[in-house]
């Protein structure tokens, strides 16, 4: 993981089979839009997270294409259906090629 980029995810530790749960995700990232300029007037190049995905046991929950208009420290809230116990994998794709990832295990109960 590139330095300083830290995800923070709210996912339940367990759910009933078939339950719909709300997921909240945050990640620290500047989301440099490409619109700002240096003191000498030269543009600061764009450098953002351009895509976020959430998958559960290999099946996709949501896949978000992100543009520079997403605020610094991107936040997403969405719902997922939990059919069985498993791992929820979150990935954030950086313009520079880095992929940040975190996993939350969800049990059925």
């Amino acid at each position, binding site marked *: 993981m590139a330095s300083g980029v830290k995800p923070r995810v709210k996912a339940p530790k367990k759910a009933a089979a078939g339950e719909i749960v709300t997921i909240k995700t945050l990640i620290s990232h500047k989301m440099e*839009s490409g619109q700002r300029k240096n003191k000498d007037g030269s543009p600061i190049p764009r450098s953002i997270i351009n895509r976020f995905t959430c998958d559960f046991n290999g099946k996709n*929950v949501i896949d978000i*294409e992100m543009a520079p208009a997403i605020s610094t420290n*991107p936040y997403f809230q969405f719902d997922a259906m939990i059919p069985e116990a498993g791992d929820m994998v979150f990935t954030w794709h950086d313009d520079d090629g880095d992929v940040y990832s975190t996993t939350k295990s969800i049990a059925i109960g």
Partner: protein
Amino acid sequence: MEFSRRDTLVLGLGAAVATVLPFRAFAAADEAIAAFTGGAEMGAGGITLTAPEIAENGNTVPISVSAAGAASIIVLASGNPTPEVATFNFGELAGSQDAATRMRLAGTQDVIAIAKMADGSFVKASSTVKVTIGGCGG
């Protein structure tokens, strides 16, 4: 120069007008819409876009979209230098077709949300968000 009450009030009203940034709209938004819809007609209804009427700060504006039965929802900011904000593509384990995020607004403008429904049709909603200038930078 001493200010009469009349002068002060006139100045005050001028300042009020100046606190709301002017409305912005660019053609690039239309192109982005066409890229998403392929030029198809967009209906109204079946999609909700929730955005504040007045943004506390244009840097971080919370918004949410909801369109039951949608395959994907695109959000555009028609007055930003580049209009795209995000495209939410719902997968097979999506629990709903709702999503929330926080976005940047360069100035007062319309935020537009368009949903592509499962049957290939499109519906649209939009919301005018006022962006203001605060008094204390700090």
